[in-house]
């Protein structure tokens, strides 16, 4: 059995025509991820929504039934896939975010929330690019703490709070 040169050429052309776009799609994705953390205090003190929370204020109001939403911290940082980034949050909380991979429009990551040194929650998830995960519930001052975690392969996130220079994060 022989594969003639013409057959081989056809095979190469077919693979180049059909395969290259998929291969490029699989390989060309950016590996750098920007993580945005907004820490919000939610309470029933009728003080309204902090204007700095403008992009996500309505979302918070729709999700929860509190009358006060106040931005208590904003952190953001860039990291590469496989490299963990740590954020120090108000109330002694520490958040570790480790992007694992970028799969199409989804960012696979591991998130660990610590209360001091005690891990409160560990989760593996795929977050949509520019998507938001909200972790809430821990008591904070006279209300509750809501942590909005956003991730983007681009340079900005549509839901980030309108703040000045954000707090720094540590990458490992």
């Amino acid at each position, binding site marked *: 059995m022989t594969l003639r040169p013409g057959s081989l050429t056809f095979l190469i052309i077919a693979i180049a025509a059909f395969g290259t776009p998929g291969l490029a799609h699989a390989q060309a994705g950016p590996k750098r991820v920007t993580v945005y953390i907004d820490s919000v205090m939610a309470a029933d003190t009728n003080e309204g929504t902090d204007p700095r929370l403008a992009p996500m204020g309505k979302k918070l109001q729709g999700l929860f039934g509190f009358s006060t939403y106040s931005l208590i911290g904003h952190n953001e940082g860039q990291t590469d896939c496989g490299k963990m980034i740590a954020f120090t949050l108000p109330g002694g909380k520490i958040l570790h975010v480790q992007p694992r991979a970028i799969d199409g429009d989804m960012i696979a990551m591991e998130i660990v929330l610590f209360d001091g040194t005690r891990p*409160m*929650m560990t989760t593996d998830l795929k977050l949509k690019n520019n998507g938001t*995960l909200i972790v809430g519930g*821990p008591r904070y001052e006279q209300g509750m703490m809501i942590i909005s975690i956003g991730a983007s392969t681009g340079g900005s996130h549509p839901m980030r709070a309108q703040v000045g220079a954000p707090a720094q994060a540590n990458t490992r």
Partner: protein
Amino acid sequence: MAECGEIGMMLGAFEDSELEPNEMQEVAFHLARCESCTGILADYSTLGRDLRSITAEPSLAGFSSAVIARVDRLPQPVLTRIARYLRRQADSVGSGFAWGGAAAAIAVLTIILMTPYAEQFANRGPHSTTSIAGHEAATAVNQVAEATASEPTMADNDSHADISRLESENHSVAVWSEPRRDTTVIWLPDQP
């Protein structure tokens, strides 16, 4: 150390790189210390080079085609002709199998390489309005709430997050997605 007489017999082969590795090493080791043998080797080398330069290589242009033409002109036995015919037919059938195999390989490669597109297309489906776990129906998670990747994910694919594992010491972890707001919420109420 080997004697010059012994080494001298190997110098010609050494020049032509025809010695065994251990012999090559032995000769090279000797040459490093013996000017006499080094001179003989240089003479061998010069002689070989000169001989190669004066020998005219015969031209072989058209030689192979002339031989083939002559072979073709030879009368072929009937059995040989039949065998040749059958071989050609077998080649054609084999070529068919080769085409089939190539087409199958292309199909498999295309499926593998197009999978990312398919997944992306599948993820663009219409947003579902049902959440996996309702706000009121907060999922009480025991000592460790864990879902493995092989199990159905907690959050809807249409929401912004697709949770494959969630562990917490908290007994009352609740997870719900709000597809209309493109948000997934993990609620960790403080323990009383």
